[in-house]
């Protein structure tokens, strides 16, 4: 036998030993893996042996799978791995036992319906664990008291009826009876409503010349002219009221722009054919011109055949007044004159509530809510809200400057309630709390808004 062959045969055990001892895969992170195994964070040093987890595995398959693993990672590492894996398996078993009694397992069983709510509560209580959180509930807050349109019209009709009856009883001269409202007397109004002074007195407003049109749309709808409120008369005719108020919205949104007739017609009768829309609009506009609306409202509608616009010269609108006053007060940056502060407080009271209350009801009855007018209303509501909050902030700053933190607090709380992202208001409120020794509230506010100490 050639000596080379003998040498090769003698070297084979060495080769076999090297192959058995040497890992034949990257083992750079083996320490980390062993650590995870010891901690029970994983089950296997590398991957599971082939066939593990199968429903049926023969002993021969297992031996082959293990032999392959041992050969791949080298016998020393295999031995270490098997010890560590055995330890991990024990840790897993223990964890499983602990898990079965854990709160997470109870919740898991509850979620899949194996435990009822009551059973879960009983199990948690028996372990001295807190019960699941209940549904968050909003505190009940008194909503704005806004009269619905129907209610308002009914009460107006009753008030007029009562006034006529009283004047007849007193022997006053009675004019020709006015036309009954279209739908005002459809439903009887309860005696309670008759006995009570149901109509709230309108808030006092700055004096204005009688020829002016005084339009209030924030918190209520009121159109004053020569001492009379024309709003109820307008709102009795929903379609015409919708048209007039829509033109008002457009004027407030962009005062210089006229509304093209096709746009107006589409808004009034959405979804109809162009011709029908045009005819309807023409008829309605001629109704306005023929005395269906009070003259002081009808003459404001400026129709040139191509487009329509509301002429609002010589009129005052509370929204614009609100915005002007808010800007004026904000510019003072602190203390306001007594007159200005009184004006601001009066206007805040007068405009408490939503812009054009009952608009959605009116829009639904006329267009089924399919038009785009709601967009203008929403935009104006944002403007009104923003102006009111600015005014509240300015009034509060005035109170703080006059060392009246107690009067500033409700204003700031209300403003912050409506616009919670205003850190500047939160700072002022915290200052007011501190000045009135409400330290807990100040601390809570500081925490909530992450204010600087």
């Amino acid at each position: 036998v050639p000596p080379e062959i003998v040498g090769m045969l003698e070297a084979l055990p060495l080769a076999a030993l090297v192959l058995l001892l040497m890992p034949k895969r990257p083992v750079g992170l083996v320490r980390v893996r062993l650590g995870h195994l010891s901690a029970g964070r994983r089950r296997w040093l590398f991957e599971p042996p082939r066939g593990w987890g199968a429903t049926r595995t023969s002993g021969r398959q297992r031996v082959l799978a293990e032999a392959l693993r041992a050969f791949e990672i080298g016998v020393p590492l295999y031995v270490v791995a098997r010890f560590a894996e055995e330890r991990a398996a024990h840790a897993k078993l223990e964890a499983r036992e602990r898990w079965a009694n854990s709160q997470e397992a109870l919740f898991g069983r509850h979620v899949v319906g194996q435990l009822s709510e009551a059973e879960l509560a009983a199990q948690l209580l028996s372990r001295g664990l807190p019960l699941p959180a209940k549904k968050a509930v909003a505190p009940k807050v008194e909503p704005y008291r806004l009269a619905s349109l129907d209610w308002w019209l009914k009460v107006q009709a009753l008030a007029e009826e009562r006034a006529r009856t009283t004047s007849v009883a007193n022997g006053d001269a009675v004019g020709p009876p006015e036309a009954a409202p279209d739908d005002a007397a459809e439903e009887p109004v309860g005696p309670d409503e008759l006995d009570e002074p149901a109509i709230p007195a309108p808030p006092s407003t700055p004096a204005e010349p009688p020829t002016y049109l005084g339009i209030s749309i924030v918190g209520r709808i009121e159109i004053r002219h020569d001492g009379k409120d024309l709003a109820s008369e307008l709102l009795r005719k929903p379609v015409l009221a919708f048209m007039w108020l829509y033109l008002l919205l457009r004027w407030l949104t962009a005062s210089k722009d006229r509304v093209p007739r096709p746009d107006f017609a589409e808004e009034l009768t959405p979804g109809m054919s162009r011709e029908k829309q045009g005819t309807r609009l023409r008829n309605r506009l001629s109704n306005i011109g023929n005395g269906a609306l009070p003259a002081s409202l009808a003459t404001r509608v400026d129709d040139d055949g191509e487009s329509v616009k509301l002429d609002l010269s010589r009129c005052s609108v509370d929204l614009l007044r609100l915005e002007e006053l808010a800007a004026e007060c904000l510019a003072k940056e602190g203390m306001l004159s007594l007159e200005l502060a009184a004006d601001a407080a009066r206007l805040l009271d007068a405009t408490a509530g939503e812009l054009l209350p009952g608009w959605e009801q009116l829009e639904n009855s006329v267009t089924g809510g399919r038009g785009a007018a709601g967009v203008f209303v929403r935009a104006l509501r944002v403007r009104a809200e923003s102006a009111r909050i600015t005014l509240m902030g300015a009034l509060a700053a005035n109170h703080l400057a006059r060392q009246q933190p107690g009067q500033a607090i409700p204003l700031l709380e209300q403003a912050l309630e409506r616009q919670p992202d205003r850190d500047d208001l939160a700072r002022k409120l915290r200052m007011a709390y501190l000045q009135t020794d409400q330290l807990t509230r100040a601390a809570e506010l500081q925490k909530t808004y992450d204010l600087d100490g």
Partner: protein
Amino acid sequence: MGNSAARPIRLVAWSVLVVAAAGGLGLIAGRVALVGNVLAQAWLPLLAAVIAVVGIGFAVGAAFPWPTRGPREPTDPEPLLAEPSVPAIAKLPAVFSLRALEPLAGSTTLAFNLGVRAAASGAVQGRRLRPICLLQAGDLTAALGLSPEPLASYIAGRPVSVADDIVDVAVRHPTGCELLCLGRDTLDGHWLRMLVPRLRKFYDLIVIDCPTDDRWLRHVAVDVSDVVLLVGLPTLESAKAAADEADAAWELRSSHRFVEVTNREKAGPGARGGLWSGLSQRSAIPNDPLVAESDRQGLPWSLTFESHAAWAAAELLERLLPSLMGREVASAA
């Protein structure tokens, strides 16, 4: 090593190499007397050593039987996950948002399961946590029976302010976690800015699954969150998006609040071991078939013992909210 084709090739290659080296040694032994003498004297002990090593290996293999597999335990190779490095949120109520780095990255299921797990495991001042999750509408929310309609109607009705009654829109999950479903384009940045302070009044933890297609909303979500989890898959697309986000975070000087989360991390040669975005804080959730199965049924996988993802999510939550999550979380998993 998950690649079944590469494994035998590698083993055979090693074997051939070593046997060839032994053959070479044998050739040298035939010509160099010293080497020949050593081999002649050593082959018997070497053979004995081989037998001993095989015997030890066999004995150890036979001594420890295979552990029993759990009823739903996955058989996939377990990836090697580093411990999550995430910032701890100290102040309460805590707010964190999740943002998917690519479609179907799993931010919604992760948000839901983190919220549920927090509700089941967390406690504050002796009472259980009340989290709320804002989840994007999708298959999971449909399986949970949630609709984006209530929130959309609420927002349409109150475009300028959020009142306390927003909590009436949220739906309570049996665990106590509350859920709000966000439709596409339901929420804008302004509204989210108003919403979060309001939710802080009622909830201990706010989890926002942030829609990614609205840049303004993303910015606001970063502003209002204590921590932002960038959830990506171990893919090139996610890695690129993560790198962009990391750049943006550095520009905003808020990278300390960003965490890279690699979802469905797999073991094997294709594993990237993270997204390599450059963010110093990272975490990983392993690939787990239980996740998809649970999502289809609208069930939280985070409350399943067998789920590898549940274990990682619990660990992530414990790091994020150390003051709220007891140690029982980690030990139980």
